[in-house]
């Protein structure tokens, strides 16, 4: 699952928009700062289980609406009162991990990033 990395080299990371993939169900609990996300594609073949995102992972999830890696990182850095460059690699790792599980995907910024059916 290196599509994100490949895309980065072709288009440029700054222009890539992260967004929730189609057929992903999720519930959020703002009070306890957690989201449970469930990528439904392939559940029959791979017995996929829901993922619980808490703490900084939840912050990244909530910041997805900001789109690009830089903007997501900036939002999370503001919440945790740290410099973006301190956390950008961790944020990127999480996004790539979520992408490998079919939860999120990237698209060039100019393309309509919508695609999640029920939002």
């Amino acid at each position, binding site marked *: 699952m290196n599509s994100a990395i490949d895309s980065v080299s072709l288009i440029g990371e700054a222009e890539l928009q992260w967004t929730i993939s189609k057929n992903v*169900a999720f*519930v959020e609990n703002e009070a306890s700062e957690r989201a449970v996300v*469930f990528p439904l594609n392939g*559940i029959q073949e791979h017995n996929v289980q*829901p993922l*619980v995102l808490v*703490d900084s992972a939840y912050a990244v999830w909530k910041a997805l609406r900001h789109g690009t890696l830089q903007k997501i990182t900036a939002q999370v850095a503001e919440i945790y009162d740290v410099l973006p460059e301190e956390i950008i690699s961790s944020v990127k790792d*999480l996004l790539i991990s979520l992408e490998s599980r079919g939860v999120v995907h990237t698209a060039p910024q100019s393309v309509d990033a919508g695609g999640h059916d*029920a939002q």
Partner: protein
Amino acid sequence: MTLISLNFASSEAIPLAHAMVQHVATELQVRVLFVKGLTLQAQRLRKERPVADVDVILDPAKFAQLEQALAKSGWYRRPSAALSFGPEHHAISLINDTWPVDIDLHKWMPGMQFAGPETCFDLLWEHRVKVTVAHFAVDTPCPAHSLMIGVAHCLREHGSPEKRAELAQHLTAFNEVLSASERQLLITHAEELSAVYALRPWLELALTPRENARLRDRSTPSQREEWRLATDAPAKLWSTFKKSKGVRAKFEVLQWVFWPTREQLALMPHVSAYDLETLGTHRVRLRRLKGALARRKFRQQRISVTSGPSRATPH
């Protein structure tokens, strides 16, 4: 940093299981409709409260297909304490070792099966709507049909004060949430599905005397008896006892009623492992019998609701 964990709660699992069943069914081209619980609340037909499980009614012809598909993801039938004989079960409960929720697959909804499960499902399907659960669109009956199913479910278990409170909420919803055309649809389809007899105690409160007088009850005597047994557990057991063939089968019924084994108790609804551990098998047996008698007494009282506007009495 650890960003992802795998433990999730029942309140999170229930909406996600709705999405999962919908997705699997869509892939298989099996028609499913979510009833009661979350979808009923999403349609504002009852007050919000914690939901216990996922209830799905599906195309009766595709029942085994969906069960098998869910089995691939680790869902299997919950062992049941029900007697192995007696009338056919209308639903099965599926459980999964990693999910804190039951998925109930229904072949039909009690009280609405008398026109035939297929006929009923086709009518529900024809009028289906979408609601969003866990940010995912799922199919559910239209508000009029959802309300009908909710009412029939409550009337089947009207021995509990909770179900009577819910009937009052359904009465409010009938008057305040449904449009005039939806109210008419409920009446017309209750007649078409031969559900008037089952719904009658609630319809008497919901409709005006003139509307009630005009209702066409298409149920047959045997269907009325079937519903009576479905709503009266002791009567159902007595009927099962009478129909059981052989001394051994009759003894099994009596033993199940009056002296169930610890293993049978453990599988019964409303009996927890904690109860069995702390109270002991004998006390749990006695408490169960006492509860059944209390429910029977309560059930014999005429159904009434204490809140919610009623059209039964002209204002």
